[in-house]
């Protein structure tokens, strides 16, 4: 394998990441994707345990971390405690976390019974991955997160596991 190409590539990727830290994925600049993502506020989702549906319209008006996850997705499961803590720590300041499970109802119910979370979970079904793609998940993998400001406008997106520094950046971005 060409070692030199790798090192150059690594440096370029690192430089790109530093420069693009905020913009991260180029789709974050797509006005069409932002507009499609904001349509989420008109949607509602079934919830586990047969409770009333989760209507996102009722949640609009707060900075929001919308997280697409699944019980079959290992990186999603590992980041749940982090975003659960984020909700606990910043809920009082107005933040909210909403989880959309790209999954069937039974495994989600089973999972949450064992490892409950303190934020709202909606069931997006297995076709939920297409919903995430409409919102700008150009890779089609999970986890995928979208951050909205108070006005319901998209301010950040992230494919892959959330890190503590992502949360810090989002806190700052939402103001």
């Amino acid at each position, binding site marked *: 394998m060409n070692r030199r190409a790798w090192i150059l590539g690594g440096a*370029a990727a690192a430089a790109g990441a530093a420069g693009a830290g905020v913009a991260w994925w*180029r789709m974050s600049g797509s006005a069409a994707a932002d507009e499609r993502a904001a349509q989420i506020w008109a949607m509602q989702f079934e919830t586990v345990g047969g409770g009333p549906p989760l209507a996102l319209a009722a949640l609009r008006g707060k900075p929001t971390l919308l997280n697409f996850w699944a019980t*079959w*997705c290992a990186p999603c499961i590992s980041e749940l405690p982090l975003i659960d803590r984020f909700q606990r720590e910043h809920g009082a300041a107005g933040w909210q976390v909403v989880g959309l499970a790209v999954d069937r109802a039974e495994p989600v119910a089973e999972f949450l019974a064992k490892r409950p979370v303190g934020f709202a979970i909606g069931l997006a079904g297995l076709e939920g991955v297409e919903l995430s793609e409409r919102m700008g998940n150009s890779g089609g993998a999970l986890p995928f997160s979208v951050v909205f400001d108070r006005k319901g406008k998209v301010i950040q997106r992230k494919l892959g596991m959330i890190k503590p520094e992502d949360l810090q950046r989002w806190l700052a971005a939402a103001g």
Partner: protein
Amino acid sequence: MSSANLTDEIAAAAARLVVEEGMEYGPAKRRAARALGRASVRPAELPGNDRLEDEVREYLRLFCADTQPGELAALRSIAALWMERLADFRPHLTGAVWRGTATRLNDIHIDLYCDDSKAAELALIDRRVDYEVGSRPGPRRGEPVNVLSLTQRSDELGASVGLHLSVLDHDDLRGALKPDAGGRSQRGDLNALRRLIASEAG
């Protein structure tokens, strides 16, 4: 409207969404059906992926002939670069960049067929490449596979391009090389990609 006409109209409308908004085929078809006032379209009335791809090519030829070939070439050269770097893991290019219908809105999708599922990730770590780990249903009865996502700057496009590496098993390769119902290949290795690049340039 007859069923055949409806399918044609959905294919044409979906092709526009695929090209202009970078949508995936499945969501584009359903959204096109809704836009045509058909809330409930029977699956049989939706165009197949090969039918939609024909329509996408036609749309590109009519409306993007001046920009798309250059954008595709830029994406393919980035794909080739990463396939050289990842040669140990039997990289195969797939998706719109392989099929030739990609524009600057598309990401690059590369499948890696590894003997050791951790090796590709370790290679990225060794070389200090910044990447994200995701998961998606894989080819084996939907069993999840890891997707390593990174961005690569493209000077030609003046933007960063998303690149997604699906970590598959060496044993998955045989099935992956079967052509689809329309006889078209779904992915190709570096040599096949170089042939494509050479034929487009010629």
